[in-house]
C-alpha cells in the first residue's frame, strides 16, 4: 500500500523534499527517497549539501526549514535521489565561542557522524586534493546484504584462539601471493591457511574509516612517506575503511567486508574489531573540521573549563564517551556492526577513557560500559578492553566488568617476557599468569576468560624481534628513536639484529617456542600476533604505526624459511584444543576426584616449588578429571619451565597406577623433533625424572599405554 508520506511538500531547483523523520540518525533509504537526520544541541541552522560522487561543488544546497527541526534534530526526506552516485555533507551555523566550547563554522562542510560509508579515501594511498573543502564525504548504502542464513558463531570465549592482524599488512607484500593484496577480499584467500594454523578468531586492527594521510610526512632518515598506517584515528564510526576494499573504488566496501565476515563464519572463524572510541581524527584546536567538531564540539568532546580539549588519548582530543548523546552514538554504532555486519566482538582501544565522566574523572560504574555489558543486541558479543589510557589510568584487573568485560592482560605479557629472558623474582607472577591471573580476575564474577593473554601484539616487538633486539630501532619513524616503548623486556640472545650465527638462531627459535608454549598452555584466552608463527620481523621497529612498507608488511617467504616455527605453533594450538582442562572459565585448582589437585606446582623436586630459591626453574601440573571435562580418561599435563642458562634435572610427580608420562613437547630439540603430535607422544624411558635443557620448556602428558 502506498504511504501518504511519499509525496514531497517542498521543492528547490527541481529537488523535491519534505520534513523527515528524526530517527534513525544518519541517511536512511525510505520509500521514494532518502531520510537525512542530524543532531546538534547548539546549532542555529543546518544545510544539506548534495554532491555527485567526487565533485567539488554540490549540485544542491538545501537549508533545513525551521519546521523540519524536532528538538535538537534536523530531519529531511529528499526524493528521487540516485543515492548510489551521491555524496552528502552538512554546513552548520551556530555560536563560535571557544571558551564556551562552541566552534561552529558555517563555511565548513561536515561528514555525517552516522555515515554508513565514506568517500574521499576510497583507494588507499592516492594523494588527496587538499584544495577540496569536502575531504571525507558521507555516502548512502544499501543494507540488504544476502547472508544466506549465516549468523555470528557465538563460540564460547573460553575456546577462542585470537589472531591479531592488520588488513593491509597481512597480504600487501608480493610474497602473500593473493590477487588483490592488502584488502578484505585477500583475507578470504588466506582462510585455508588460518584453518591449517588452527586459530578460530581474527582480530582486525581498526577498520572504521580513517585518513591514512593524517599527519603524513616524509621521513628525513629514509626518504619514505610516513602515514597514519594503523588507523587508530577514526573519521567515521559507522563506515568501513574503504581503502582496505579491493572494490572500494566502486563504492562496494560495505559488501566486501560483510562477505569477508560471512566467509570467515562459514569456516568457523570469528571476527573481532579493534574499535577506537577514545578520540577522533579531528585532533586539537588546530586539527581539521571533519565532522563532530563542527556539528557539536561541546557535546562530542571532553573540554576543560576553559574550552580546551582534554587529551587523555595522547592524540589531541578525547571523545566525551559518558555524555548521553555520545553514549547513545557508541551504542548505535556497536549495535550496527553487530547486527548488520555480524561482528562477533570488539576490542576497545584505550578503553579506560570510556570510564571517565564528563569532567574526565574515572567513575566506579561508568554508564557507557554498563550499557554495553547489558545491551540485548550485543548480548553474545565479546567485549574486550585495553584497560588503560594515555592519561595515566591503568585498570588491568580493575576494569568495571559486570562479569562481561575481558581485558588485554598487559601483565601477562610483561611477566612472561621477564621470565623467559631469565629475570629473577617473577615466579610468583608466572604462577598467577598460567592460572589465568586469579590475582587480577578472581572476584566480581570474573574468571579466566577475563584475561586476554598475549606476549606480542601490534604494539611493540614482533615475537622474532623480541628475541632479536635488546633495544627498539625506530629511526625510520622520523622521531629520533624517541617514539615507542622502552620497557620491552626483550633479549637479543647475544647479537643485536639478524645474524648467521646458528647457535643464536637456534636459541631465538627456542625462545619463541618457549613463549608460545607458555601462552597456549596458560589458562585465559590466548592471542597471537599474525606473522609470529613464521618469525616475521619488523627489523627492531616496535612502533610501526606509520610504516606502509616492508617494515609492516608480512613477509610470507619466511613461512618456508621458518616452517619449523609454523609447525610448532600449529601443534601447540592443536594441543590446547585437545585439552579442556586448559580452557576453563573458573579458577579451579583444588583437589579433584582423581586424588590430585587440578593445578599443582613443582620445582626440580616434585611437589616442592621453592618460591624464594628456584627463580628460574618451575613446573606446573594440570589434572583434568574425566568426569568433569568429559574426556575418555583423566588427563595429566606437566610443563617444566627452565629459564636458566644451564640444564637441570626435574623430578616428576608420580602418576596414578597404569599411567605413564609421554613427551609432547621439548623446545630444546631441533625442528622436527621438538614436538610429537597428538596420539604420537613418546613414552619417557625414565618415569621419575627428566632433563630440561637450558632455556627450555618440556610438556608431558599422561597416557595409559605402557
Amino acid at each position: 500500500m502506498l504511504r501518504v508520506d511519499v509525496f514531497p511538500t517542498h521543492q528547490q531547483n527541481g529537488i523535491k523534499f519534505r520534513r523527515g523523520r528524526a530517527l534513525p540518525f544518519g541517511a536512511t533509504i525510505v520509500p521514494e527517497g532518502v531520510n537525512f537526520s542530524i543532531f546538534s544541541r547548539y546549532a542555529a541552522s543546518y544545510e544539506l549539501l548534495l554532491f555527485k560522487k567526487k565533485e567539488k561543488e554540490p549540485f544542491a544546497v538545501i537549508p533545513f526549514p525551521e519546521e523540519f527541526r524536532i528538538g535538537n534534530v534536523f530531519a529531511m526526506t529528499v526524493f528521487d535521489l540516485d543515492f548510489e552516485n551521491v555524496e552528502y555533507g552538512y554546513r552548520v551555523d551556530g555560536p563560535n565561542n571557544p571558551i564556551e566550547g562552541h566552534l561552529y563554522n558555517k563555511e565548513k562542510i561536515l561528514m555525517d557522524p552516522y555515515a554508513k560509508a565514506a568517500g574521499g579515501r576510497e583507494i588507499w594511498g592516492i594523494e588527496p586534493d587538499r584544495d577540496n573543502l569536502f575531504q571525507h564525504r558521507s555516502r548512502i548504502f544499501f543494507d540488504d546484504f544476502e547472508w544466506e542464513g549465516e549468523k555470528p558463531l557465538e563460540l564460547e570465549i573460553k575456546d577462542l584462539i585470537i589472531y591479531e592482524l592488520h588488513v593491509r599488512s597481512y597480504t600487501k607484500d608480493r610474497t602473500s601471493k593473493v590477487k588483490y593484496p592488502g584488502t578484505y577480499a585477500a583475507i578470504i584467500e588466506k582462510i585455508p591457511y588460518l584453518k591449517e594454523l588452527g586459530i578460530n578468531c581474527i582480530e582486525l586492527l581498526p577498520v572504521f574509516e580513517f585518513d591514512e594521510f593524517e599527519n603524513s610526512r616524509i621521513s628525513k632518515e629514509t626518504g619514505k612517506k610516513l602515514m597514519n598506517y594503523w588507523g587508530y584515528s577514526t573519521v567515521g564510526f559507522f563506515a568501513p575503511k574503504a581503502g582496505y576494499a579491493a572494490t572500494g573504488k566502486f563504492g562496494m566496501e560495505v559488501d566486501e567486508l560483510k562477505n569477508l565476515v560471512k566467509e570467515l563464519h562459514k569456516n568457523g572463524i570469528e571476527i573481532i574489531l579493534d574499535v577506537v572510541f577514545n578520540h577522533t581524527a579531528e585532533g586539537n584546536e588546530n586539527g581539521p573540521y571533519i565532522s563532530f567538531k563542527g556539528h557539536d564540539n561541546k557535546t562530542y568532546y571532553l573540554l576543560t573549563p576553559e574550552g580546551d580539549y582534554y587529551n587523555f588519548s595522547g592524540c589531541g582530543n578525547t571523545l566525551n564517551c559518558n555524555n548521553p548523546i555520545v553514549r547513545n552514538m557508541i551504542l548505535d554504532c556497536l549495535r550496527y556492526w553487530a547486527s548488520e555486519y555480524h561482528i562477533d566482538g570488539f576490542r576497545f582501544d584505550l578503553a579506560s577513557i570510556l570510564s571517565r565522566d564528563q569532567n574526565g574523572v574515572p567513575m566506579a560504574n561508568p554508564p557507557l560500559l554498563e550499557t554495553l555489558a547489558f545491551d540485548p543486541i550485543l548480548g553474545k558479543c565479546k567485549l574486550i578492553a585495553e584497560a588503560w589510557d594515555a592519561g595515566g589510568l591503568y585498570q588491568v584487573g580493575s576494569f568495571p566488568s559486570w562479569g562481561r568485560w575481558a581485558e588485554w592482560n598487559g601483565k601477562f605479557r610483561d611477566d612472561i617476557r621477564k621470565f623467559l629472558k631469565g629475570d629473577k623474582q617473577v615466579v610468583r607472577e608466572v604462577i598467577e599468569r598460567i592460572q589465568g591471573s586469579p590475582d587480577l580476575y578472581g572476584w566480581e564474577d570474573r574468571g579466566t576468560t577475563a584475561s586476554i593473554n598475549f606476549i606480542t601484539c601490534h604494539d611493540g616487538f614482533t615475537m622474532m624481534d623480541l628475541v632479536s633486539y635488546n633495544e627498539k630501532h625506530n629511526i625510520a619513524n622520523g622521531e629520533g628513536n624517541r617514539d615507542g616503548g622502552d620497557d620491552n623486556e626483550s633479549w637479543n640472545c647475544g647479537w643485536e639484529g639478524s645474524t648467521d650465527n646458528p647457535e643464536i638462531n637456534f636459541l631465538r627459535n627456542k625462545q619463541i617456542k618457549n613463549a608460545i608454549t607458555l601462552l597456549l598452555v596458560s589458562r585465559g584466552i590466548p592471542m597471537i600476533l599474525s606473522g609470529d608463527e613464521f618469525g616475521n620481523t619488523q627489523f627492531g621497529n616496535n612502533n610501526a604505526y606509520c610504516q606502509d612498507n616492508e617494515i609492516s608488511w608480512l613477509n610470507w617467504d619466511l613461512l618456508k624459511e621458518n616452517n619449523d616455527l609454523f609447525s610448532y605453533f600449529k601443534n601447540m594450538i592443536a594441543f590446547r584444543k585437545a585439552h579442556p582442562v586448559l580452557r576453563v572459565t573458573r579458577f579451579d585448582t583444588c583437589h579433584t576426584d582423581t586424588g590430585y589437585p587440578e593445578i599443582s606446582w613443582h620445582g626440580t623436586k616434585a611437589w616442592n616449588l621453592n618460591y624464594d630459591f628456584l627463580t628460574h626453574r618451575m613446573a606446573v601440573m594440570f589434572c583434568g578429571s574425566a568426569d568433569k571435562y568429559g574426556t575418555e580418561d583423566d588427563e595429566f599435563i606437566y610443563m617444566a619451565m627452565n629459564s636458566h642458562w644451564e640444564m637441570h634435572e626435574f623430578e616428576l610427580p608420580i602418576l596414578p597406577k597404569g599411567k605413564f608420562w609421554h613427551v609432547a613437547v621439548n623446545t630444546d630439540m631441533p625442528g622436527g623433533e621438538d614436538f610429537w603430535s597428538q596420539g604420537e607422544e613418546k613414552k619417557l624411558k625414565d618415569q621419575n625424572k627428566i632433563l630440561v635443557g637450558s632455556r627450555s620448556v618440556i610438556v608431558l602428558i599422561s597416557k595409559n599405554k605402557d
Partner: protein
Amino acid sequence: MKINFEKRKGVDIVSLIGRFDGNTASSVKDETMEQLNENTSLIINMKDCEYVSSAGLRVLMIIAKTLKSRGGSGVLVEMSEEVGDVMEMTGFGNIFRSFKTIDEALEFLQRGGEKC
C-alpha cells in the same frame, strides 16, 4: 545502457550493453522481470557490460530470487574478469552459474540447468 532481448532454442537471452549502475538498474530490472514467466530459462549476456555497480548486483540478485520463486533457472555468460571478481568479492559470486559462451550456457540450460 542498452538492453537487448532475444530468444534462442526456447531460452531467453538478455544482453546488457554499457554500464549497469544506479541509473539503469531499475529499467533493467523492470524490463527483464517482464520476460520472466513460470519455468523461464534465462541467459544474461555480460559481454558488453563494462561495469556493474552495487545497485546492478542487487538487480541480478532480485532476478535470481524471482526466477527461483517461479521455478526457472538462469546463468551469466561472457563476464569480464573484473566484473566476475567484484561479484565474488562482494558476496554476489554464487547468485548465478557463469559460462564462457552462450553456446555452453544453452547446452547447460537445455540439459535442464539447475534451479537458481
